[in-house]
């Protein structure tokens, strides 16, 4: 027993020693770890991260070697996995879910020489930064498409949780839809989950029953697409281009493009220019896109959306530019001003035209 303990301690010391030593000039590739909360799968959140990981490996070649750990449960399991990655000499670890925040922070404190990137959180350290995407930008464009295409004037939104990040997406979408058709109403139903195909399907069907002809979602499964395809309605996809499952129904989809992002950030760790400044990237950096518009979308709508996209990328248009009113008609963003990032971070209201209640 004692001998086993001594061995473990020796091994631990060795691991610390290795990490403490200055990294070699060229020869050693940077070991990059990716922690996923779900299996990779074919479409969805984790599938997109893993696509990005592969692009990064291809771009950086011998300079990196990546490890992925999928289906990691939140809590003690996550702590064990992240610590194991750091102990194995991973100089950079991406934890790709909000739920890994505290565990990432804890391990970052234990391994000061490794770099940690945590997605969508709000805690950081000298060697740990947060990263997020401005999903409301492509959401606005998708909203434009939906606003132009709806015949009933009512669009449904299958929401997950009333968090600021989700409200940004729904509000951006509603603003885009109402820019094309000021009478459009967006009905929101929450399913209380990020990934629950059964409830996503039921919520989509409920929305269709209420006269919605297009459904959008902030959840991760293909269920809304399949529900729309089955009901002969239209859908705005999320996280992945799911056109193959909704060939007659998908108008477009809001998708993250992680490849260049992971290449850029990993590169900055390799050449030592990485900082722990929070990253909140936008369409201008090429990290977000909308899927090719479906064949049912008329050319003039395509042209309008492309023009707006160019303005967003150029920085001359912000989806949340005043005047913007909330559900009660109170002006939240004054005419001629753009919402400050701090207000986006703490968003807790729906824009005018959204039907749904938020907890007090």
């Amino acid at each position, binding site marked *: 027993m004692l001998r086993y303990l001594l061995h473990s301690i020796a091994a631990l010391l060795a691991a610390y020693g290795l990490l403490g030593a200055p990294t070699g000039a060229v020869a050693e590739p940077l070991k990059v770890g990716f922690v996923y909360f*779900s*299996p*990779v*799968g*074919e*479409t*969805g959140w*984790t*599938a997109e991260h893993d696509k990005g990981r592969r692009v990064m490996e291809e771009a950086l070649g011998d300079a990196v070697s990546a490890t992925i750990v999928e289906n990691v449960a939140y809590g003690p399991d996550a702590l064990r996995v992240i610590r194991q990655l750091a102990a194995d000499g991973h100089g950079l670890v991406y934890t790709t879910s909000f739920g890994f925040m505290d565990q990432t922070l804890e391990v970052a404190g234990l391994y000061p020489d490794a770099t940690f990137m945590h997605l969508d959180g709000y805690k950081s350290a000298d060697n740990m930064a947060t990263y997020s995407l401005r999903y409301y930008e492509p959401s606005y464009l998708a909203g434009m498409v939906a606003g132009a295409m709806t015949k009933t004037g009512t669009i449904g939104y299958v929401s997950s949780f009333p968090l600021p990040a989700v409200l940004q997406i729904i509000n951006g979408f509603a603003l885009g839809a109402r820019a094309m058709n000021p009478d459009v109403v967006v*009905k929101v*139903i*929450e399913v*209380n989950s990020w*990934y*629950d*195909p*059964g409830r996503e*399907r*039921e*919520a989509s*069907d*409920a*929305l*269709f*029953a*209420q*006269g919605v002809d297009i459904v959008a979602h902030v959840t991760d*499964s*293909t*269920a809304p*697409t*399949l529900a729309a*395809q*089955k*009901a*002969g309605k239209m859908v705005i996809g999320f996280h992945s281009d*799911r056109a*193959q*499952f909704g060939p*007659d129904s998908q108008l477009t989809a809001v998708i993250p493009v992680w490849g260049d992002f992971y290449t850029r950030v990993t590169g900055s760790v390799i050449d030592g220019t990485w900082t722990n400044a929070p990253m909140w990237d936008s369409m201008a950096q090429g990290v977000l896109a909308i899927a090719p518009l479906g064949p049912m979308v008329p050319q003039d709508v395509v042209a309008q959306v492309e023009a707006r996209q160019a303005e967003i990328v150029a920085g001359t248009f912000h989806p949340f530019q005043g005047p913007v009113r909330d559900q009660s008609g109170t002006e939240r963003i004054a005419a001629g001003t753009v919402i400050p990032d701090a207000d986006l971070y703490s968003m807790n209201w729906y824009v005018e035209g959204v*039907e*749904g*209640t938020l*907890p007090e």
Partner: protein
Amino acid sequence: MAEINFIVILLIATVTAATPLMLASLGELVAERSGVLNLGVEGMMLVGASVAFAVAASSGSLLLGTVCGALAGALMSLVFAFLTLSCMANQVATGLALTIFGIGVSAYIGSGFTGVSLEVSGPLVVPFISDVTILGTFLLGLEPLTYVTIVLFFCVRWFLYKSRPGLMLRAVGDVPDAAHAIGFSVLGVRYLAVMFGGAMAGVAGAFLSVYYTPVWVENMTAGRGWIAVALVVFAAWNPTRIMFGALLFGGVTILQFHIQSANLGIPTQFLTMLPYAATIAVLVIISSDRARILLNTPASLAVPFRP
């Protein structure tokens, strides 16, 4: 017109959401009527769901997937039957173990199929039926498996109460010693009843993964197996009441989304819980007649039989 359409769509969604519960409960009813309490329905449903999805996604045939889901459920129940009937293991403990085992096995079988979707065809249009608007919309909106379920309900009811083998099955569940003395094979009947329950649970799982979502997710039955077991007990082992309870569950499941849209300010977490609570509460109330429960409860439920 718009209101009628809304109600029709609501009905379709309700019946569809109720279908897996009907299937699993009818299966469990037959097993319990023979005197075996199998609490492993949730596990058997999950294994049925994962096997059915894996087969359907690999072969492209939904029917083949469903059949394999039924076989997988029956196989799971065979393990249970062997342990409880031949080895005399405690039925409650074995059933619980079967559920836990099923959760793990189904996750393993389905691990290669996460994030995979089956392709779905557009809305069905049949010339004559589609033209008769309301009825047509309703009839075409239902899944074929739902029709099968309704047929199975009549078959099970007829079998239990109107047929000789059904009488034998109930005798085995009430007074196994007498049934044995007359010359019935008590264990044989129970084996068959348990496997029928397993196959039905497997089909219920297959309905969820192959027709309803159609996506495989770990733990996707989300407690429906337990509701199925509860339905049987709270419906006082009456097939008609089981169907009613399943419809109630389906109805509340669907209605919660419309309640949300009505902006009544009810927390969504509460609405998520509602179908489970409402179904059990209503069934407890309508089945609270003690005499009737005593009359209907299989007298030898969960009591091992030693020939």
